[in-house]
């Protein structure tokens, strides 16, 4: 919100520079984001006289002029090219001479335009930042002396303070509201009487504020408020015999500087009053409204054509101003076209009302309207001060339109009692505890009086004060603490350090903490294996889901997504991985071929047994763990490698990722990690990824007999979705996803030490020929169970082909035997091998080789 520094000064004498004022107000909680100079003096600008004008010989639209002006007191004449039609010999104009910095980045230079020299520029008001759009150059009164300071012609220079006001301080969203804060800051009293824009009216043109008490009541119209909860106060004033015309220049200029276009003398007053006092007001054409003005909710089927010509269909939640013939305005948001003021209007019915902020906010959202009035009413407007506003606004409209106020306003104020006065009691004890230091009673008295809190009353260690009606944000005892603190100055509050001990978090469920620690450890393990960590967006593209053959019901979806085509919350981390691969491939980034991410995926609400969540009361204390799950995703692919003179990277294949997973498990759960891999999968993770992988490539990761994840090779049809085809179709992408929640459901305890044998080991190879489909993993799993002497077993060779019958494979196991208490003899080892073979043959079919 922009507020003029000069405008504030019309209320209070200010010694502070605009920058200093901005800083001080920021420290008081009214943040100024920028101080913008308005109409700053422009060095090099001077009054000039056009002594000659002729057509540019080489351009139809341009003129050549000779202009006389003063340069350091001496008269000089320069030639200037000018494009404006309204330039003529004999005119006084404003000339930007060579070297003038007209605006940042716009320096006037000596130039040749179509072959003719031009030493300066004749300015329009637009070019000087004084008008939104100019039709031609600015022609000055012909008696303007050449030595006139251009600044006196251009109007005062000023600064606009751009405020970012927090939603609780709506009372500062106007010039006068800000003036009240400045008066707290400066410890000065201030009043609106005879100050501000009003003073300009009074001073320059003799405007007189009406004394309503001396005027008769009007009987033309009756006002009815259906529900005081929607409309706190409604005042209406008749202004008769006005002439709608242009506003005086000072008024349109003031509005222009605040970014508002001048319309006519009635609308401009309503806009000015809104900026000055923060009270939206509306002017009806009194001849176009009926005899009963009702503030009521709309009825089903009612419509209204708004001032901007848009027709809206009202709902029974919309608050209206209506007469006996139907709606005449959308309360607090926008007037109706029918009842609006036009150039023919003679009598005005001026509305100054205060509506419920929630109603207005909802109506604006419902009809996608965003008006100045609505924005103010979304916050709370002070109904008490609105009595002053109607006096000033009424007088201003009557004055500018040369009309009359013959009756006093109608005033329905059903909530008067509520806003009459509010007292809050603050205990010194709470103040001291909250701020961490003690203030004296005198200091507090002083702060409260600066803040305009009246009737202070100490009772023991508590003080009770009356809160002014414009401070509706202050409701509780603790709200006064912030007031004390900000007047005292946050930066003046002492610095201390609290004492914190470990017990401060002891009751937070240790299970949760261990799980978090476990997750961090998984992350560290992935990193140490050379996987780079990525972070991806949680929403995925709807088209990607359909490419995978997944209906949207399989996804959690917000009711109000930002983009309709990226509206699904992921049920797997895959999408982000493929995006990452796509981006790096497209950009030909080298060196990335292994990544991981631990993050959340979501289950749709409907997928859970009962839609209990949709029928929650106003209070739910359960957590959402049922709907969000932590997953670990890992991918390896044939990325662009960094070429090396000696090293060639190994081929990317399944063993790369299964090996990584096995190592992570060994590190996390210990040597006996209990993880196995089998073809085929059917967990939830697998269901969501089924169409991602090439047929038959899906592998399930089983841990303690529980399917906790999958590995697979990404299918070409999926790569194709990302346009990876050209780059990557021949390159493998392997992806694995594991369910972290299941993995971390049991956190391994402390490891116990297993004494290792001190006697030398004996190694034996065992070559077996078995069916090609037979599981080697099963034998690997079985062997240690069968022999207590077996301390290590590795698969060293798998062979199919010559010398091996077709449909069979030869597998070589390397076995290592050690006895805990003696050196094994060769014969002991041989015997153990025979025993193992014997045992294995009971369960598996194979021959020795």
């Amino acid at each position: 919100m922009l507020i003029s520094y000069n405008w504030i000064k019309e209320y209070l004498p200010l010694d502070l520079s605009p920058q200093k004022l901005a800083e001080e107000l920021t420290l008081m909680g009214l943040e100024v984001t920028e101080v913008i100079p308005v109409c700053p003096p422009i060095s090099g600008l001077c009054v000039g006289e056009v002594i000659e004008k002729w057509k540019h010989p080489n351009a139809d639209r341009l003129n050549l002029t000779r202009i006389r002006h003063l340069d350091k007191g001496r008269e000089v004449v320069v030639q200037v090219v000018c494009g404006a039609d309204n330039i003529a010999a004999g005119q006084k104009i404003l000339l930007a001479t060579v070297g003038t910095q007209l605006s940042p980045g716009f320096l006037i230079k000596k130039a040749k335009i179509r072959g003719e020299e031009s030493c300066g520029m004749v300015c329009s008001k637009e070019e000087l930042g004084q008008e939104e759009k100019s039709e031609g150059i600015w022609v000055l009164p012909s008696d303007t002396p050449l030595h006139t300071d251009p600044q006196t012609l251009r109007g005062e220079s000023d600064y606009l303070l751009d405020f970012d006001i927090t939603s609780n301080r709506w009372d500062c969203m106007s010039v006068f509201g800000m003036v009240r804060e400045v008066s707290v800051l400066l410890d000065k009293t201030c009043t609106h009487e005879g100050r501000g824009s009003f003073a300009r009216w009074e001073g320059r043109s003799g405007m007189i504020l009406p004394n309503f008490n001396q005027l008769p009541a009007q009987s033309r119209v009756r006002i009815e408020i259906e529900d005081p909860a929607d409309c706190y106060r409604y005042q209406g004033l008749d202004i008769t015999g006005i002439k709608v015309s242009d506003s005086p220049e000072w008024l349109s200029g003031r509005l222009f500087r605040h970014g508002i276009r001048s319309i006519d003398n009635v609308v401009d007053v309503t806009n000015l009053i809104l900026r000055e006092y923060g009270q939206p007001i509306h002017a009806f054409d009194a001849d176009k409204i009926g005899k009963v003005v009702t503030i009521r909710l709309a009825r089903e089927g009612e419509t209204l054509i708004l001032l901007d010509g848009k027709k809206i269909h009202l709902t029974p939640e919309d608050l209206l101003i209506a007469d006996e013939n139907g709606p005449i305005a959308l309360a607090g948001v926008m007037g109706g076209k029918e009842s609006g003021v036009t150039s023919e209007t003679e009598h005005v019915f001026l509305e100054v009302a205060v509506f419920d902020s929630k109603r207005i906010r909802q109506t604006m959202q419902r009809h996608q309207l965003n008006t100045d009035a609505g924005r103010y009413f979304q916050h709370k407007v002070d109904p008490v001060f609105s009595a002053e506003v109607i006096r000033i606004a009424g007088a201003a409209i009557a004055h500018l339109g040369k009309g009359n106020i013959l009756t006093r306003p109608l005033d329905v104020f059903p909530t008067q009692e509520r806003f009459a006065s509010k007292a809050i009691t603050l205990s010194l004890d709470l103040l001291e505890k909250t701020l961490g230091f003690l203030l004296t009673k005198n200091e507090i008295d002083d702060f409260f009086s600066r803040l305009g809190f009246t009737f202070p009353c100490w009772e023991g260690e508590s003080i009770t004060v009356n809160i002014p009606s414009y401070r509706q944000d202050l409701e509780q005892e603790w709200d006064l603490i912030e007031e004390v603190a900000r007047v005292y100055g946050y930066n003046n509050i002492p610095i201390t350090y609290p004492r914190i001990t470990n017990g401060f978090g002891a009751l937070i469920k240790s299970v949760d903490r261990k799980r978090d620690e476990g997750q961090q450890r998984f992350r560290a393990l992935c990193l140490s294996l050379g996987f780079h960590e990525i972070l991806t967006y949680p929403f995925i593209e709807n088209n990607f889901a359909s490419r995978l053959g997944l209906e949207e019901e399989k996804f959690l979806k917000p009711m109000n997504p930002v983009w309709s085509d990226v509206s699904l919350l992921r049920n797997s981390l895959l999408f982000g991985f493929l995006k990452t691969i796509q981006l790096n491939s497209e950009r030909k980034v080298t060196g990335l071929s292994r990544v991981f991410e631990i993050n959340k995926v979501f289950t749709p609400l409907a997928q859970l047994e009962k839609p209990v969540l949709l029928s929650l009361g106003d209070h739910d204390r359960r957590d959402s763990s049922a709907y969000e799950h932590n997953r670990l995703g890992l991918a390896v692919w044939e990325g662009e490698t960094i070429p090396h003179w000696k090293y060639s990277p190994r081929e990317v294949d399944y063993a790369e990722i299964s090996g990584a997973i096995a190592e992570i498990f060994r590190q996390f759960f210990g040597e006996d990690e209990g993880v196995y891999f089998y073809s085929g999968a059917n967990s939830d993770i697998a269901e969501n990824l089924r169409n991602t992988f090439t047929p038959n490539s899906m592998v399930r990761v089983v841990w303690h007999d529980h399917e906790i994840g999958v590995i697979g090779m990404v299918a070409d049809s999926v790569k194709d979705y990302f346009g990876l085809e050209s780059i990557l179709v021949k390159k493998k992408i392997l992806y694995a996803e594991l369910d972290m929640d299941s993995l971390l459901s049991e956190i391994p305890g402390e490891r116990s030490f297993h004494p290792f044998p001190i006697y030398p080991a004996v190694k034996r190879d065992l070559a077996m020929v078995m069916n090609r489909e037979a599981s080697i993993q099963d034998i690997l799993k079985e062997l240690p169970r069968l022999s207590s002497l077996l301390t290590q077993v590795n698969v060293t060779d798998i062979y199919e082909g010559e010398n091996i019958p077709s449909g069979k494979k030869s597998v070589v196991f390397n076995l290592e035997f050690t006895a805990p208490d003696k050196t094994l003899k060769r014969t002991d080892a041989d015997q153990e091998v025979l025993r193992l073979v014997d045992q294995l043959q009971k369960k598996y079919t194979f021959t020795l080789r």
Partner: protein
Amino acid sequence: MKKIIKEIGEQLEELKREISSIDDPRALVEKKTIYLGKKSKLSFALKQLGNLAIEIRSEAGKEINEFKRAFEDIFAHHEEKLKTDSGIDPGEVGLPGYPYQVGKAHPLYRVRDRVLQYFNRLGFITVNGFEMESDYYNFQALNMPADHPARDSQDSFYLSPTWVLRTQTSPMQIRALEQQPPPLAMISPGKVFRRDTIDATHSYCFHQIEGILVDEGVGFSDLRGVLIEFCREFFGSGLKVRFRPDYFPFTEPSCEISIEYPGKKDGWLEILGAGMVNPAVLQNVGIDYRRYTGFAFGMGVERIAMLLHGINDIRLFFENDYRFLKQF
């Protein structure tokens, strides 16, 4: 000529004596230049051969070439010896080794972890939260009833009329206080969501870190102490830190904390939002606010990371371009 040949013979004897003491491949190369290089006696002698009378030319040539072979043998032999002795091929010494790669933690998470560690050391315990929150935790318990204006500005993703993607990590204040009545010192990181489109400075999801301390006798002055030290730890000791009033429904008084920052127009850059826990919030979780007070604070992780590393586009965090990831 005879003289030169004699001198070359002496050089050869000299080299035989010295060679075993040369153990640096570079020194060996130098020696080689001395005895066999362009300016060596041997090269000189070879060039001179053409000037000799035919009758003595062939014999001298034979002699010189024998010396040359002897030199070369000695050098070749010793080069081989040095190689097998050290096990390192001198030619490989300056070449790039095998391309090892340590996995890089994501820069955003590195910064998050550093912040968490800082507060952990002070005694704040890390607690993780949920990305889906009920309306109660995300708004109501934080003193934002249904018609609260602050709800508009947050513009949340609603999953159902009563569930949202959390718009802030502040719900963890409530969840922690429910589990642990005061004294409590907790820090909670996590992802939050706002209905924003994505550009260089906005994202519909980003990360926050929330902290809260509630105990008897915790005042605004303690908030100042803890958070000034935090700013100085991360952005420079002795740094000026500024507090100004702000508004959050769940703290009262509330403040915005800025550090001095020459790059900004007014010289200050906002780092944290904070405040004293609003007694209304304490009441919501059944805590006696006349006995216990506390402060809470929150910060945007992306913002801190961008500032620490001079990153100018928030999208870089979610794009995973390796040229970005590998820098940190």
